[in-house]
Structure formats: structure tokens, C-alpha cells
């Protein structure tokens, strides 16, 4: 990587950048507002659709690389009884630039990268990752549900992003380039941003008020697989998939076939460890028979199993699960409770 990793962009830089990329035939994904006030990442065809008014995008970044449903293979039965099997077509050649995700979501890509490349390299995931350049926007105003710091992140964390953007109040921005991909992008955007003075200071990192110690929590988890605590902590959980589906690191999936009489496709769909049928066997036996076991799995997986296996906590503190849970289950309170015991 070259020395120069900080760039300065004037107000309106985003519009110019997006327009430039679009005219180059690059697919641009950026935050777009919906009628109900939520903001989500979506492909845009002009810079006009982009909004900057959001704490974080509603749905996690993961779905760009690990979509909620995707075709794995297609098959068709031939008249002679043979079956024609095709792999999923590769993603488009053209590049994709993603603007606007937050540092917590990009940090989550580390978790996904680990899983999808573990031993067997998930081809489609890798292809999608490779074609994407990620331009994250540093957090300016985290809310009380955000807790990236205790899990090793920061509102200014650059983990997982190719470029990290610090937007100033006047609309101008500092762009921090973190990867060769980011460099390439900056080259391409040449006119939009100029190299910044090394001393053009970054804004202050906003405070995150929530704190806990994942190490301590892991120590407790190590000894407390069997504990009354889980039954109590999970009582209110109704076992939906909101928290897992919105979680940027959750990656469980299901594989199903769909089709008509002679043709069909095999799909990969998001799945959730919260669901009662997730691990159920044909005999009726279920290794995780109740919500307590399932909720325990969620916490254990993030704060014990994953760190043991891959060396990092599988939670980036985005706070989505806290916000999304319809019944008020609060991961942080649960962690605090664990810490206290």
C-alpha cells in the first residue's frame, strides 16, 4: 500500500463519485430511504436516490454477499431420464462499490470471511466479495443500543472496509484508504478527492456508553453450559429470526429445492438457530429442544465457540438485535447479567 492513505473530498463528493462510477458501468450500492423511514443499501441508478440520514442501514451488509435467498444450482430432467445440472451463474463481472455501511457491518465481514473460506472456499461468496469495494461511513452519532467498542470495534473502525469516510458537518469528507482495492477506487475517482494533508485531523471518536468484557463473559460461558440462567434469560424470547436475520455476522443457512415437474433449482436461504425446527431430527429428537437451548446457542456461538474456533467474537455490537427484537430481549442486558454473576 502506498503512503498516501488519506484523501480530502469537498461537499457533494458523494454525488460526483456515484455519478462517475455509474457512468463507468460500475454497480453502485448505497443507502436509500423507504417510505416507512427505514434506510437500506440498494443498487442505485442515480446519486439522487441516496440518503445520508440514518444511524445504520436497517438490514445488514451481509446480504450483499450472502443474500437471504440465492440459487446454488439449477437442474432439468431430460426426456431420456438424464438430469442436466448447472451451477449457479457467476456474479456479474462488473465491479460493485458499496457506499454507506457502518464500521460495525464491515467488521462483521471478517466473521463471514472466516466461515465461508474455512476449508471449503465458498465460491459464490468469494466472487461477490472480490468484486465489491466497500466505502464505509464512520459513525457520528451511535445510539444507546450500539456497543461496538466492548466487542473490539469502534465507531471509526476500519476493519473490513476498503475506504472509510469521515463526513464533516459541512458535507466535506476525509477518506481513509485501507486496502489496495480502496486505493484503486481512489485512483478511479481521481478528481473527486484529493490527497489530504497527513495532519488534517480525523474527527473525534464518539463515545460508546455500553461496556462489558467479552473475556470475562467467555470465562463464565466456559463453565456454564448447564445453568438455570439460560431458562430465565430466554423466557421472553419467542424464537423468531429477527435478531439473527438482522445480525451482520449470523450466517446459518438452509438448502432447499424448489421447482416444477421437470425443472427446478436448489437454493440457499438464511436460517436461524432461534427456530424450533432448526436442529430437529426425524425421530422427533431435538438436540436443542427448547428456546433456552437455542438462545444459549446464540450467545455461546458468538462469545465462546466462534472465538475458540476462529479467534474473534462473532458480534460486532451493531445493536440491531436489540432494536429488532419485538419483545424486548436485550443481548447487552443478558451479557451484563452474565458479567455480574
Amino acid at each position, binding site marked *: 500500500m502506498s503512503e498516501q492513505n488519506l484523501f480530502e473530498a469537498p461537499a457533494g463528493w458523494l454525488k460526483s463519485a456515484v455519478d462517475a462510477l455509474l457512468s463507468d458501468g460500475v454497480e453502485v450500492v448505497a443507502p436509500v430511504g423507504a417510505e416507512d423511514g427505514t434506510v437500506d443499501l440498494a443498487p442505485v441508478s442515480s446519486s439522487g436516490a441516496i440518503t445520508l440520514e440514518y444511524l445504520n442501514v436497517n438490514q445488514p451488509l451481509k446480504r450483499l454477499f450472502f443474500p437471504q435467498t440465492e440459487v446454488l444450482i439449477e437442474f432439468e430432467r431430460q426426456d431420456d431420464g438424464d438430469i442436466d445440472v448447472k451451477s449457479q451463474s457467476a456474479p456479474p463481472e462488473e465491479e460493485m462499490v458499496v457506499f454507506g455501511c457502518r464500521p460495525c457491518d464491515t467488521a462483521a465481514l471478517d466473521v463471514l470471511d472466516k466461515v465461508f473460506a474455512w476449508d471449503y472456499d465458498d465460491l459464490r461468496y468469494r466472487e461477490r466479495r472480490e468484486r465489491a469495494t466497500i466505502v464505509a461511513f464512520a459513525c457520528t452519532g451511535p445510539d*444507546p443500543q450500539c456497543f461496538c467498542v466492548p466487542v473490539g470495534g469502534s465507531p471509526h473502525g476500519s476493519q473490513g472496509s476498503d475506504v472509510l469516510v469521515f463526513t464533516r458537518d459541512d458535507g466535506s469528507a476525509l477518506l481513509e484508504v485501507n486496502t489496495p482495492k480502496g486505493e484503486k477506487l481512489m485512483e478511479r475517482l481521481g478528481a473527486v478527492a484529493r490527497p489530504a494533508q497527513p495532519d488534517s485531523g480525523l474527527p473525534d471518536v464518539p463515545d460508546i456508553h455500553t461496556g462489558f468484557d467479552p473475556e470475562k463473559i467467555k470465562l463464565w460461558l466456559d463453565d456454564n453450559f448447564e445453568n438455570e440462567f439460560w431458562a430465565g434469560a430466554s423466557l421472553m424470547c419467542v424464537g423468531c*429470526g429477527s435478531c439473527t*436475520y438482522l445480525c451482520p455476522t449470523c450466517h446459518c443457512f438452509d438448502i432447499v429445492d424448489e421447482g416444477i415437474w421437470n425443472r427446478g433449482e436448489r437454493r440457499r436461504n438464511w436460517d436461524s438457530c432461534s427456530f424450533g*425446527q432448526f436442529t430437529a431430527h426425524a425421530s422427533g429428537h431435538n438436540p436443542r429442544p*427448547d428456546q*433456552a437451548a437455542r438462545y444459549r446457542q446464540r450467545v455461546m456461538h458468538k462469545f465462546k465457540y466462534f472465538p475458540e474456533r476462529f479467534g474473534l467474537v462473532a458480534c460486532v455490537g451493531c445493536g440491531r438485535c436489540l432494536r429488532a427484537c419485538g*419483545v*424486548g430481549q*436485550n443481548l447487552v442486558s443478558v451479557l451484563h447479567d452474565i458479567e455480574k454473576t
Partner: protein
Amino acid sequence: MKADGPATDALRKEAADLLSRGDVGVVIGYGRQDDADLAAPVFARNAEDADRLVFDDHCLGNLAVYLPRSEIRAMGRAGVVVKGCDLMAVNVLLRENVIKREDVVLIGTHCAGVGEPQLEKCSTCDVHSPEGCDVVVGEPVDQPKVDEEQRYKAAAEIDAMSVEERWDFWRSQFDKCIRCYACRQVCPLCYCKRCIVEKNIPQWVATSAHLRGSIAWNVVRAFHLTGRCVGCGECERVCPVGIPLGAINQKMSRHVGDSYGFHSGLSADQEAPFTVWSPDDSDEGIL
């Protein structure tokens, strides 16, 4: 910290009494969590726990959803805090043999409406004071006259569109669905041991979160609640992608209301409209 609602003290006392007398093994009520807008459920197992209970306008959830759960049943008789609207769900659970009346103690709350701003359903609520509970706490609330039309407003707005417009509208809505089934899990009436979407012989509903699967899912959910939905609005409230599920429920409630004079949840011994028939049912639209 928000101020406790006026019913809170009475509620705590009743719950503590029930628990200390051993009348119930658990009282399911609302508690407060930091500054959250939502009062999360509290499962009080003893008299001290009862002090965690509150009742105020943050008590959005419908706690009837917990009654069928085996974990709760295992605790013995369950006391449950119900607003008038929640009680309607309890009635359906009773009718459908999911719970037995003697296994629950209904702690009703007079409720002037919840939510900030107040939930839409509360503005058309005609059960501010629950009837048929074992205990009722709080100050009785005036029951304003309810405008029937207002109750079905969300559905009426969509009904006013053309078929094509409706299709566009719903397609864009269902496209958002991530199939998290929060709408199902939070619905007190979606208590199936195995939901139809989990049945794979045959696969009734494609589990994929594509438009086809999500249409099927939302159609199934709405249809399975037709004639049963009590309009508690929980599904719409929890949908993480903001699909206006309430409008669909309203539409179907209105249909069974207009066609069969049926309004779900009014009592535990109504016969569900899809289990009975009349020779006089309309033949309109049949060739």
C-alpha cells in the same frame, strides 16, 4: 426512568398475593428495561419478583403469546397481565383448547391506550376495560364511542386502489420480507407445534425469501388468521422490515364481520367462521 403507571401498585400487590398464596406459579407481566420504549415481559416467580412489574403506556406486547409455551406451563398455573385487546386473544386460545381457563389467572388492566404516539389500534379500541378477568387493576377508563370505519382505515385505503396498484404495492412490500417469522412467533394465535411453512411433505410454502415464497407465506399467515385474528397488531409492530400486515388482517376481519357477523375474540365460546356454515351464505361471485 419513566413514572410508573397508576395501575402499577395495584398490579404488584395482586401479583405478589397470587404468588405468595401459591395460586399461580408465575405471573407474566410487563417490566421496564432501562430507557427502552418497550416494556419487556417479566416472568415473576415469587412475591419479590412482583416488584418488577409495571403497567404503563409502554406495555405494547400481547403477553398471551406466552401462555401456550411449554416452559410456562411447566411453571404451573400462570397469571397473565392482559389489556382488553390481549384478552381477546386469550378467548381464542380458550376456544381452541390451547389453554384451559382453570390453568390461567387473568389479571386485567384498565387501559387508556398504549404507545407513544398512541398506537392506531388504541384509537378504535372498544375494550378499554377488560371483562371476564379474575382480577382487574387500575382506574376504569371512559369508553369512547368507536368509529367502525376508522377501525378498518388501513385496509380501506388499500381497498381504494385498483387491483394493479394493489399488486404493485404489495409486491414491493413482500419483496422486503426476510422470512424471519417474527410476525408468526409474536402472534398469540400462531401457536402451531409445526407451522405449515415447516411442513415439507408437501412443501406448502416456499421457504425462500423471494417474492413467490413471501407472497405464499403472507397469504397463508393472513388466511390462517382470518376469523381468528383479534387485531392486537403485534405482527405488524414486530416486523423488522415494516410490512403493513395489520391492513391485511383488518381486511379479513372486516370480511368475516360483514359476511358472517363474526368478530373474533369476543368470547371463548364463539364458533370460528371457518368451522361453521349457513345455507344462506352469499353465493356472490360463484358461477
